[in-house]
């Protein structure tokens, strides 16, 4: 007897339809699973057998062959257990086989027959809706993710026996509402910008970076508050739009990190340790491994102690920063993931950390040059803002807070709305993503700004790329203050924050 069940396999960030065909023949008892399954799929043999037996059904003592079609798609993870079990039951005529075609089954089985959730529920739910199937049966733990997709009926099944009941025409178990979950994530409270005393210039620069999603580099001696400021960045970023939110949720669902219930509004904030490997940062360690840059999509990637990161690892950031996506190409698989994020990095200006403090820097020229070399190149080229943080005076902790997160966030949201109105037809959402042609179209420089730009160009202080960078930042500064045209004042401010290495006064001509 041949039975067919429908399920899905996660490929990258999307789900592909998989048909589980189960064939039972007389012969020596055997249970073979074919179809390029990985180790968890091979172990499903034992799980399915135990689950069927413990659920009170009979496990046929014949030659059972299960094929996960299409046979050239590698199958990863234990999510095929439920479909395999139902296929075996249908092939041995313990449940009707006709209803199997209309239901999608997804979930891992424990040995006593309980259905567990598997990663990638959101992607599977989207694919189920697209395939036009009647109902998706899955474990209750992650069923709330599937509820976010409109136009799909979701059936939670606690045990294998419940799934059999549904397939035989019964009702599914109730889907637990988000409030009843054990793993409800508490509402995340980010540190507030009002904790920062003084540092008006740095807070202002951070606001500009947040408003236009510009990449920023915080440079300063140890203890000047670089990490503290960066950690307050999420509190002033605008919330995710609906499209951005679905993209982020799909990514987090595939890695099993999606918190309960509602649509995500918080932008992701990823801060990997500097010992991270290249594979950890961009992905590709094994099939299905997602790197930090993809997890930071539509959010912030914060690299603290930038000079401690391996050079090869930083070089791997080139593609995501340039294209907004990362393509993993290996011998056996290739995938393209979205990775459009805002890069914020913190570093010391020299190995001892005190360059620029009048007497304390003890580094020789060679050490400073070597330190700069680690950061140079394509990465520094894509930084739009350089913020210097100095040690404050003795009583700077008594200064009042410059602003609070709420006020800064309002300004950022207003500026973003202006940008979105302006850039609506161009397919980008923020100033940092404007390319040369968009700059020419949308940037309105007045006379004094044009003169200043010409002067900077003729003095050789700006390359072409540097020019575009300064213009983008100037456009964001104008948006923050509600100006339509970009004047010399905005351009001058953008030029003051440009990330040029201060190589001119040191040594080499």
């Amino acid at each position, binding site marked *: 007897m041949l039975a067919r069940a429908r399920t899905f396999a996660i490929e990258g960030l999307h789900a592909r339809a998989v048909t589980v065909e189960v064939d039972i023949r007389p012969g020596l008892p055997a249970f073979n699973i074919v179809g390029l399954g990985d180790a968890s799929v091979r172990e499903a043999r034992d799980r399915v057998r135990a689950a069927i037996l413990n659920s009170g059904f009979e496990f046929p003592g014949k030659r059972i062959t299960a094929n996960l079609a299409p046979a050239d798609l590698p199958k990863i993870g234990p999510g095929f257990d439920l479909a395999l079990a139902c296929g075996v039951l249908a092939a041995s005529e313990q449940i009707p086989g006709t209803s199997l075609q209309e239901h999608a089954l997804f979930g891992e089985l424990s040995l006593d027959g309980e259905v567990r959730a598997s990663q990638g529920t959101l992607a599977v739910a989207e694919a189920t809706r697209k395939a036009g199937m009647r109902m998706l049966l899955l474990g209750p733990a992650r069923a709330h993710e599937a509820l976010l997709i409109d136009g799909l009926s979701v059936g939670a099944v606690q045990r294998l026996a419940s799934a059999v009941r549904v397939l035989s025409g019964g009702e599914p178990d109730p889907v637990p509402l988000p409030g009843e979950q054990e793993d409800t994530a508490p509402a995340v409270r980010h540190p507030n910008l009002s904790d920062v005393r*003084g540092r008006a*210039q740095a807070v202002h620069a951070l606001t500009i970076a947040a408003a236009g999603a510009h990449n920023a580099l915080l440079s300063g001696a140890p203890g000047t508050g670089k990490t503290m400021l960066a950690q307050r960045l999420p509190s002033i970023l605008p919330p995710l739009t609906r499209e951005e939110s679905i993209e982020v949720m799909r990514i987090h669902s595939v890695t099993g990190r999606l918190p309960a219930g509602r649509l995500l509004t918080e932008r992701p904030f990823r801060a990997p340790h500097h010992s991270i490997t290249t594979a950890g940062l961009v992905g590709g360690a094994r099939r299905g491994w997602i790197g930090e840059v993809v997890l930071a999509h539509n959010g912030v990637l914060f690299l603290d102690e930038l000079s401690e990161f391996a050079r090869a690892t930083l070089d791997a950031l080139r593609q995501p920063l340039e294209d907004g996506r990362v393509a993993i190409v290996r011998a056996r698989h290739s995938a393209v993931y979205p990775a459009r994020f805002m890069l914020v990095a913190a570093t010391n*200006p020299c190995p001892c950390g005190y360059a620029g403090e009048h007497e304390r820097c003890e580094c020789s*020229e060679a050490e400073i040059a070597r330190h700069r070399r680690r950061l140079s190149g394509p990465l520094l080229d894509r930084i739009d803002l350089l913020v210097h943080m100095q040690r404050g005076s003795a009583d700077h902790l008594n200064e009042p807070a410059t602003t609070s997160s709420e006020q800064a966030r309002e300004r950022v949201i207003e500026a973003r709305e202006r940008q979105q109105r302006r850039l609506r037809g161009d397919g980008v959402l923020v100033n940092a993503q404007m390319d040369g042609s968009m700059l020419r179209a949308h940037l309105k420089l007045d006379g004094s700004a044009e003169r200043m730009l010409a002067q*900077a160009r003729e003095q050789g202080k700006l390359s072409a790329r540097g020019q575009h960078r300064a213009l983008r930042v100037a456009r964001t500064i104008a948006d923050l203050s509600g100006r339509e045209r970009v004047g010399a004042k905005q351009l001058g401010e953008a030029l003051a924050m440009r990330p040029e290495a201060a190589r001119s*006064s040191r040594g080499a001509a």
Partner: protein
Amino acid sequence: MREARRGMADPRRGARGSPTAAGICASCARRAWLLGRLSVRLDFRARDLGRLWRLLELPDEQLIEAIGGHRRAELRADYAAWHAEAPDAGETLDGVCRHHDAFPRRLRPHALAPRALHVRGELALLGGLSHEKVVAIVGARRATDYGMETARSLARSLGGCGLVVASALDEGIAAAALAGALEAQGRALAVMPGTLRRCSPAWCESIYRRVVLERGCAICESAPSARRSSWGRVGAQRTLALLADLVVVVEAEERPAELACAHVARAHGIPVAAVPGRVTSPASRGAHTLLAEGARFVRGPQDALDALYDAGSIDSGRLADARDRAGGDARRPEPGYGRSSGRAPTQPLERRLACVLERVGLGEDTLAKLAAGDGDSGELACALSELELRGLLRRGDGGRYLPAGTGHKVRARCAATHRERATG
């Protein structure tokens, strides 16, 4: 084998011969070989500079006697059997020795001076030194960006005036001085602490190449095939001191090795000048000690010129022209550019910019400090950018801004001197 480990000159050549450069006679070449052979022993004795100078003044036999150690006899035998060898194929070595016409005349009377100099670059520069004024700009190897900027702008002004700017090719102040001289298309003289073959430190390579290619000259006492030695660094300082008409110390720590040039110059009657720094900064302590001991006080190129010539006798017109030729800090626009207004150096500064410039000079040298004091952060940032575009400010380390160039002051003093001479 042991010879090679001791760091002898290339063992393939044999212990009894070395390649000679054209222009160096056999006895001077033999001296260069001997110094290379004894370099480890000289390194050891370089800790006491006075002793090192006395040793370098000794003729060959006495030198072997003094520091030959227990291998004296072997050394004497090698010395006697030394012969000149042809240089490597494809490598051209230029040099001058005492007996050559082009040897700098000012070095001849001193016993401390090197007997032979290997040269790369413009040989004519070396020969014409007797008609030129040479300013040596020396200082700390670990310098602050204030010191680097001061040395650079001083060298640029003096180089633009037509003086020869000399310095060791080493990190810190020395490299900044040579860079400044090259910027002004002046003539740079680099005294190499290592050998001519390889520039050390390696990242000064670009300066070395520019010095050699752009009408400058690099000289070295050690033969190109000799090993790198640490006494070579102070040796270069003494060569520099003896070649100079004025030694300007920009920043120096209070260590004998850093002040070697100044001490040698003072001992031989060459004027020494120093640029002050912050009194609390350890980087300037040596310079302050020199000032306390009577060195001339230098704030800018005009003071250096006054120290070199007598005050007031400089041709101020020549200085003003030379400054224009050097380009100052604001370049003229290309013709037909259109919109840019081409700011000439004489345009007066707007009030708000002059105010910010003054505040930076007074010590509020970062944007954060300026914003903490008074004013809107955006306007201040814009003012700093404008001043940077005009060339009046330069970016230093850690987000600090440094006043750059002393163009205005020099012109003012020139004009004043010119008026005095016209009336009085």
